[in-house]
């Protein structure tokens, strides 16, 4: 009887703590493909040989320190040609914003429309810059993390003024911090006009300070950003905060916005307006924050960034993004500890993740369903073709329901199979794969068909027996089509 119970308790342990079971490691000949798929957007021609030559561990280390990787001058040159991608929020507003209002004159609507039309190039160039770097940059992990953090701190690029600022937001608030400290990333997004506009904090003001205007409802607290800052950006939905905390944080954030008074310095840049701030003391997550203006927000961001709930929330998301849709809780705990002990050092957390048995567990190999963004970029990378026209890729991503920078809801695009695997998406991917392999997608002038042998070499012939069988049965001109539309390509 005693042995029976012992047996039960052991088996329960094994079921609930899978990490205790010795995971079977990915065979060494697949490791290069695995890291190219998981630390980036999949292999381009020659990548597998390069990784094998330098060693998988060295490759991971190098990816964690993108500053040590040289950017090809061709890429930098192309990026420099995107005129709006180097302008700041103020310049963008000056150049592409609405024409200044002249007192006593009615606004010139034709001019407003013309400006609005002219402004379309901003989002276009921002998305082009994103795709270009994801496809061409050897700093693949950095580009993947731009995608991860952009969705974490999502801004909808079609929401009015965010049409002007979304490229600057990615370049200035996300990109520099993707492997840095979480607290810096939090600060940068919290201060960017794109975020302040998207989640309405520029309209969040102390209700007692605002004069009621005739016929208008008085403005006041706007809780939108305060809520998402906790629910999505830091603590997570079950992170232990209450509606009172949302209100307290909204009050702390009153006056935290951007300057939008014509002619003043630093226009359309972050600006804390003391006059619109609620100066009273607040109790936030059980701590008293004394009325001190701008400093209150810094205190609140410190509290949020240091919270164990935040460590857990971010760790779960990273484990889900890099390992499996339903990640091993033991891995999440391990990453949380690293997050807390390093004060949210994202690079350190990722290093831990890439060393974890779960990351190398053979049952997680080739099991993560790619998002449309990852699928389209990986397919183009695999062909090795130069992209000079990005429009077909924008359109494909729109068709697949994932237009870049245009996720409307603040939670950003998901990266799970549940979110993206559906019959409509499968057929669209297959149509795209077929057209791409035949050279029917106008990504460049040449539009060359893709050769099967070249493509097979990119993947080092690592296809499953059933895929191999389908390829061998197919007529020669369809073999490249099948590779680009294969389960191995849909997953990573």
């Amino acid at each position: 009887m005693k042995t029976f119970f012992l047996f039960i308790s052991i088996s329960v342990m094994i079921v609930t703590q899978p990490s205790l079971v010795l995971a079977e490691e990915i065979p060494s000949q697949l490791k290069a493909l695995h890291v190219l798929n998981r630390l980036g957007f999949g292999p381009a021609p020659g990548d597998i040989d390069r990784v094998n030559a330098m060693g998988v561990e060295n490759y991971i280390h190098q990816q964690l320190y993108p500053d040590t990787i040289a950017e090809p001058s061709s890429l930098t040159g192309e990026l420099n040609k995107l005129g709006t991608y180097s302008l700041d929020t103020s310049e963008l507003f000056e150049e592409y914003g609405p024409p200044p209002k002249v007192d006593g004159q009615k606004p010139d609507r034709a001019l407003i429309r013309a400006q609005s039309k002219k402004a379309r190039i901003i989002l276009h160039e921002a998305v082009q810059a994103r795709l270009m770097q994801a496809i061409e940059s050897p700093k693949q992990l950095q580009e993947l993390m731009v995608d991860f953090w952009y969705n974490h701190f999502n801004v909808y690029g079609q929401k009015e003024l965010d049409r002007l600022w979304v490229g600057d937001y990615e370049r200035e608030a996300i990109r520099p911090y993707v492997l840095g400290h979480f607290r810096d990333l939090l600060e940068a997004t919290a201060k960017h006009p794109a975020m302040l506009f998207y989640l309405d904090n520029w309209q969040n003001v102390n209700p007692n300070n605002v004069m009621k205007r005739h016929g208008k409802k008085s403005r006041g607290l706007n809780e939108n950003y305060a809520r998402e800052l906790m629910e999505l950006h830091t603590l997570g939905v079950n992170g232990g905060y209450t509606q009172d905390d949302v209100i307290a944080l909204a009050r702390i954030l009153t006056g935290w916005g951007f300057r939008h008074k014509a002619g003043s310095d630093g226009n359309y840049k972050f600006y804390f307006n003391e006059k619109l701030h609620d100066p009273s003391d607040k109790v936030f997550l059980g701590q008293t924050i004394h009325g001190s203006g701008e400093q209150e927000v810094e205190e609140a961001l410190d509290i949020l960034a240091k919270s164990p709930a935040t460590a857990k929330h971010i760790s779960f998301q990273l484990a889900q993004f890099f390992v499996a849709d339903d990640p091993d809780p033991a891995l999440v705990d391990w990453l949380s500890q690293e997050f807390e002990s390093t004060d949210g050092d994202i690079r350190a957390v990722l290093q831990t993740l890439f060393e974890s048995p779960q990351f190398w567990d053979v049952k997680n190999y080739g099991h993560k369903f790619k998002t449309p963004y990852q699928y389209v970029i990986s397919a183009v990378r695999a062909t090795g073709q130069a992209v000079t026209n990005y429009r077909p890729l924008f359109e494909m991503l729109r068709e697949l329901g994932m237009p870049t920078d245009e996720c409307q809801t603040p939670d950003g695009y998901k990266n799970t199979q549940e979110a993206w695997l559906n019959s409509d998406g499968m057929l669209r991917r297959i149509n795209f794969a077929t057209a791409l392999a035949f050279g029917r997608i106008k990504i460049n002038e040449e539009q060359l068909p893709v050769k099967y042998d070249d493509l097979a070499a990119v993947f080092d012939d690592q296809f499953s027996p059933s895929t191999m069988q389908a390829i061998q049965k197919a007529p020669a001109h369809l073999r490249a089509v099948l590779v680009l539309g294969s389960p191995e390509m849909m997953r990573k």
Partner: protein
Amino acid sequence: MDMNRRQFLKYVASMFVISLWPLGLTGWAGGLDGDILSTQPQLKRKKLIVLFQRGAVDGLSVVVPYGDGRYYDARPTIAIPSGGNPDSVLDLNGYFGLHPALESILPLWKNKTLGFVHACGSPDPTRSHFDAQNFMECGTPGNPSTPDGWMNRLLAVLPGAHSPTQAVSLGPIMPRIFQGKMNVANVALGKNAAHAMPIDRPMVESAFDELYKGDDPLAQAYLQGQKARKQLLSDLQQHMAMADNGAPSPDGFVDSAHRLAQLMREDPNIQLVFLDLGGWDTHVNQGSVKGQLANHLKSLGDGLGALVQGLGDIYPDTVILVMSEFGRTVHENGDGGTDHGHGNAMWVMGGSTQGGQIQGHWPGLDTSALYESRDLDVTTDFRAVIGAVLQQHMQLNDDQLSVVFPTIPQAQAPLKII
């Protein structure tokens, strides 16, 4: 600050440019298999078509309060005149009249299968197209983060097994209103609707059939997709062959409406349909009896007329709702247009509906009755109208309804849909 805010709002308005008729690339999605007509046939037959006018249509030009002099005072150049001639409103009830461009649906008002709920809309004060559309599509005004759209939640609570073509979205991308856990088929009804895609080539198809012949989730998704596509494609091709005998309409929406009606007749599994039309954001030169808005309304009215005619004997089982994110200012602006407002008119059509009447509480155009002293007020929440349709037409019970809309503010006057 205030000056800049106003400037912002105007700018915001001007920046939201919406493309015209949503005709685009084709693609299909399906859900679980099953013959939905096999159980509860009466309920399964009930159909709902939602047409969204993106850009905020001027409801005061659609259902015109011609009996109120203040309407004419507020709109010296764009009001629709009264007077019983071809260039005036089409009288509805002695106080309200229909825009003359909507002449082709006047018979539906007369046979009492078309009605309106006036001063209807969302209680949220936003005048941003983006926010207001988002609220109307997710069905939770004030909470933009609701992950799914109310039509997807509706699909989920409809009883019985789900068929791959039970819910159909017309247009190139899946709209917010249909996003969610349930599979929704997607089909474009433009001229290229039945054009071949790469996967339709027999050799490509058989190569992929071989690749995805297993029973893993990817293969299942592939097979479902092929099944739904073949069904809709064959429906469309049959119709195209017939349509070629007559002169095709030059108008995009009328053409699409014809095809939609045909598709719904060919495929009895289709139960929920969503489509949207743009071009309603008339800040400049809105026009009156003729002009920009009149042209769009004519196209819409002709299309709806064609849809009703095409639906034929399934029209009594169908309700068509036409809605828009908010209304427009009562006063015309300095450019012969109108700006973003609040309350609007919602259209309710259907062969079994209690049409021929204007429901809801009409607050009037007196300045004191206007929302923020400038816009028609909202006296009936849009969820109350849709909720009444879902209960009275789709036969949803209270529990099912609360999944679709977690809260529904009660209408001031009870709404009789069926």
